[in-house]
């Protein structure tokens, strides 16, 4: 069973949900073959479907990810302004998605299943709650991944284009 089969199984039982960019009125102009794929946990899915503050903003940022819009990405956590960053230590392959310019800023955590296929497992976490808690969140993310999948992330290293298309490394 491949990682994609495992994801499909998890979607079928409601552990994971695929995010559709259907709220974007121009999404149909981006062909499926050009898109990235984003799966989210039940908790994140509930947030996106809710009327909670920042759900609309987050939905847009996730849509941009799916619709292969260009964004900045960092392979280490210390870069201040980018949409995605890999947490330290890199070998653990836990990444964060940052929702900027909102009050509060939000963070989502997950791992890559394949190139352009990201599974977000934890979030939304207000940025201020992250101070001094990265290790705990990272351990939680890895534990949740292991509870869902028999595979570890297969993409490793410092070639950002092995992870994502159409991004700039900062």
């Amino acid at each position, binding site marked *: 069973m491949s990682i994609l089969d495992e994801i499909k199984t998890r979607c079928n039982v409601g552990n994971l949900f695929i995010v559709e960019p*259907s709220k974007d009125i121009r999404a149909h102009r981006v062909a499926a073959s050009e898109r990235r794929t984003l799966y989210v946990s039940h908790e994140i899915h509930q947030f996106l479907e809710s009327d909670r503050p920042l759900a*609309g903003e987050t939905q847009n940022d996730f849509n941009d990810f799916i619709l292969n819009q260009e964004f900045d990405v960092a392979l280490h956590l210390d870069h201040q302004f980018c949409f995605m960053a890999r947490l330290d230590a890199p070998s653990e392959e836990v990444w964060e998605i940052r929702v900027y310019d909102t009050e509060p800023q939000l963070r989502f955590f997950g791992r890559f299943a394949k190139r352009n296929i990201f599974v977000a497992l934890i979030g939304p976490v207000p940025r201020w709650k992250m101070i001094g808690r990265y290790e705990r969140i990272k351990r939680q993310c890895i534990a949740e991944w292991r509870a869902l999948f028999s595979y570890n992330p297969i993409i490793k290293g410092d070639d950002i284009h092995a992870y994502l298309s159409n991004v700039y490394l900062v």
Partner: protein
Amino acid sequence: MPTSPTSILSEIEISKPISKKTRAFYRRRLQSRIHRLIRKAFREQREKAGLTQKQLADRIQSRAEQINRWLNVPSNLTLDTISDLLLGMAVDLDDPSTTPIVDLVAEEEEQRSDIAAQTDTHIKDVSAVLDGPHNPIDVQLNSSPKPSLASEPLSFESFAGHARMMQDLQAAPGGS
């Protein structure tokens, strides 16, 4: 359930207020689109004229760190800031235009029905080959009569095209 373009249309067309969430989504979306435009302009000026973030900051009397933030992540820029950034890059905004959302919804629905029709045609074509009297597999086994499609075998491209259309159909809102 994902929101479909049609539901967006109904939300906009009917006389009730547009939800706060939808307005937040579209505000953010516009911010992202403006951000991409500014970022693209900066990159072009960097390549053409060697413009740096520091030079841009000096030109519009801002801080390099602020320029870095504006260029790297979408934010709710004021019209004044957008004007300063474009002027600092020595570029001018082309006349923006608008498209009625109803037209975009119609375009999406037309595309979806086109894909469905093409997919249906491909399925019929493939079925005709597999189920018809000139099944290539039978022909290979029997060597005669000569199949009518033998000189025009279904190409890999046609199957790949079919697969892509199926992908698009499945990825389309409301797709399985």
